[in-house]
């Protein structure tokens, strides 16, 4: 039997040379007459070990990493793929502390097999949640989600059950009482890649979650709105949607139940604002991605004015876990009101970055030091931005805060989509504050004045502060402008841009008076 060797296929592993590694292994094995099957698995999210190569043995899988294309001949010389005494040897993959210390729920299948293989997904307990949902009444599915305590993973943390109940209860005046499921896969926050990893490493989980959502609220049409910056994801989703259709998990008669659900994959066009749900809906309707006033909520009047569930990728994926394992099992992960797991993405200047899934409640410092191993540059860490480009910059004095929604809100920060970006002591926080305004000016949809004009004026005022012109006056002006943006903007873009700006000013004032 051929020896099974796993080489990840996701965008990050490929960016680090996984395709070339897979190719050299096939060629190297052939040259030595070794019978090898190279399987392109999903990534486990240990980016610092990518490309992470795994070999199936009788005692489980053993790993090597990070394997650069140039390392492969040396590996073969050391005895690979048999017992190999090599500096890149990591031993049994399940015993790598960085992975072993995680508690994976949503990412439990990531890396185990070929993510595009439907059979692989079924063999790993996939579609168990759907099986159960097919036997339940819509209200019972919604109740299960409500009881699980699942909160939206996109950033706003809104209880998913309440959203679904609203859509279930809403009357649709569309043709055939149509309602819609929309998956927000416009993961634009810098420092976040959990959605991408899920869609590339376990994409059927998202498909399953969307079908369950459709059954729960009575929707037979679903859309995935994927950002164009994720070409690998696009290929993976196109493939799994087509395979799920062939296997009758999607279509007019899901698993012979007589119920219908279809998924249409749509590609965004490079507008950050389309991650905001109403802007996303406008974009799906083929218009400029201008945000809408709320109310009405999308749950009542969403896509084409009809009741619509808009959920993030991880929220929809978690749905399949909730249904498969039961509401109580999901709820009992986590702390206080923050239920389930947290998927932190450790990025920026970090030695051991990647995706860390833990029960909610770990501290920033634990992540930085225990998982991250400090900065990549080896210099002291100075600022950590939590929650994407609209998130607060935290100084060391705040790193003992727990990463859950309430604890972060308590210090004026937010968890957002779980991005944690580390900067070392060479960072110029005045430039980071300036960038926050610059980004907002570039990406504002333009609908409301505080965001559209405020960000441009904010940029100008920060430039005057940096240049040392009427410093006190301009700092007061900037603070006033930030208040106007927070209180007066229609959505989070203008409303949160002041957070990185104000935190940079509050915690790193010395950078503004150089």
């Amino acid at each position: 039997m051929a020896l099974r060797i796993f080489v990840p296929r996701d965008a990050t592993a490929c960016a680090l040379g996984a395709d070339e590694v897979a190719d050299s292994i096939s060629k190297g094995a052939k040259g030595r007459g070794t019978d090898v099957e190279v399987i392109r698995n999903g990534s486990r999210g240990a980016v610092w070990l990518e490309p992470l190569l795994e070999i199936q043995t009788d005692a489980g899988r053993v790993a090597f990493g990070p394997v650069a294309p140039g390392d492969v001949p040396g590996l073969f010389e050391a005895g690979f793929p048999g017992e190999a005494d090599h500096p890149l040897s990591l031993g049994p993959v399940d015993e790598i502390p960085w992975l072993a210390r995680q508690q994976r729920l949503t990412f439990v299948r990531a890396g185990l097999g070929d993510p595009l293989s439907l059979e692989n997904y079924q063999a790993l307990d996939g579609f168990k949640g759907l099986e159960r949902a097919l036997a339940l009444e819509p209200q019972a599915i919604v109740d299960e989600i409500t009881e699980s305590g699942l909160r939206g993973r996109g950033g706003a943390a809104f209880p998913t059950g309440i959203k679904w109940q609203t859509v279930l209860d809403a009357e649709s005046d569309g043709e055939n009482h149509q309602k819609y499921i929309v998956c927000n896969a416009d993961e634009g926050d810098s420092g976040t890649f959990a959605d991408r990893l899920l869609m590339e490493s376990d994409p059927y989980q998202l498909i399953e979650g969307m079908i369950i959502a459709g059954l729960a609220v009575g929707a037979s049409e679903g859309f995935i709105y994927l950002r164009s910056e994720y070409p690998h994801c696009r290929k993976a989703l196109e493939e799994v949607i087509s395979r799920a259709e062939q296997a009758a998990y999607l279509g007019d008669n899901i698993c012979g139940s007589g119920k219908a659900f279809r998924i249409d994959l749509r590609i965004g066009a490079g507008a950050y604002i389309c991650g905001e749900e109403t802007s996303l809906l406008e974009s799906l309707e083929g218009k400029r991605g201008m945000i809408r006033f709320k109310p009405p909520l999308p749950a009542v009047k969403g896509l084409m004015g009809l009741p619509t569930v808009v959920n993030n990728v991880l929220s929809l994926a978690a749905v399949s876990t909730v249904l498969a394992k039961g509401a109580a099992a999901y709820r009992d992960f986590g702390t206080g009101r923050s239920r389930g797991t947290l998927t932190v993405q450790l990025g920026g200047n970090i030695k051991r970055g990647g995706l860390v899934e833990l029960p909610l409640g770990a501290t920033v410092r634990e992540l930085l030091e225990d998982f991250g191993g400090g900065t990549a540059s080896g210099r002291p860490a100075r600022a950590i931005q939590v929650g994407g480009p609209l998130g607060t910059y935290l100084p060391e004095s705040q790193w003992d805060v727990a990463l859950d929604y309430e604890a972060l809100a308590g210090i004026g920060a937010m968890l957002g989509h779980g991005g944690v970006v580390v900067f070392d002591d060479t960072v110029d926080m005045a430039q980071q504050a300036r960038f926050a305004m610059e980004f907002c000016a570039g990406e504002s949809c333009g609908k409301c004045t505080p965001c559209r004009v405020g960000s441009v004026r904010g940029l100008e005022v920060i430039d005057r502060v940096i240049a040392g012109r009427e410093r006190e006056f301009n700092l007061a002006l900037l603070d006033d402008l930030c208040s106007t943006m927070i209180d007066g903007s229609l959505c989070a873009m203008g409303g949160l841009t002041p957070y990185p700006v104000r935190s940079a000013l509050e915690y790193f004032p010395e950078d503004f008076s150089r």
Partner: protein
Amino acid sequence: MQSSAVSLQEIVDSALESHLGKIGALLPVLYSIQDKLGHVPRQAVPMIARAMSLSRAEIHGVMSFYHDFRSEPAGENIIHLCRAEACQAMGARKLEQHVIRRLGIGFGETTADGLVSLEPVYCLGNCACTPSIRVNDDIHARVTAQKFDEIMDCLEAKS
């Protein structure tokens, strides 16, 4: 000119045929044309407008709202340089200066030989091994000035 106008009409018609009737067909239609031609020529706008009962202004409004749609031809290769925070934390600002020097163009521009168009991007989801760039559909990680030069040498050799 006559023949290229005919073929443009054919491309537009085929895009419309694939997507007309769908919810929000305009973006897929524009993408379908751009995938074939590398941009959406100005002459295509009235054709789309007529078929979709939209005004030319509405189509212009949509095209200009999104960063990805182009009215002018792009270079043979499109390089997206990530300017977002996780890349900044690993030296993206310095890399950006190098890229602009090496290519001799700024963002939104195409080199004189038509080899490369340079675009900014705000996150490629590759945040734990930065700085990142995207060359067409390939992502590159931990890009240094030297690594960028190697990528460019490779593109130049291929053309």
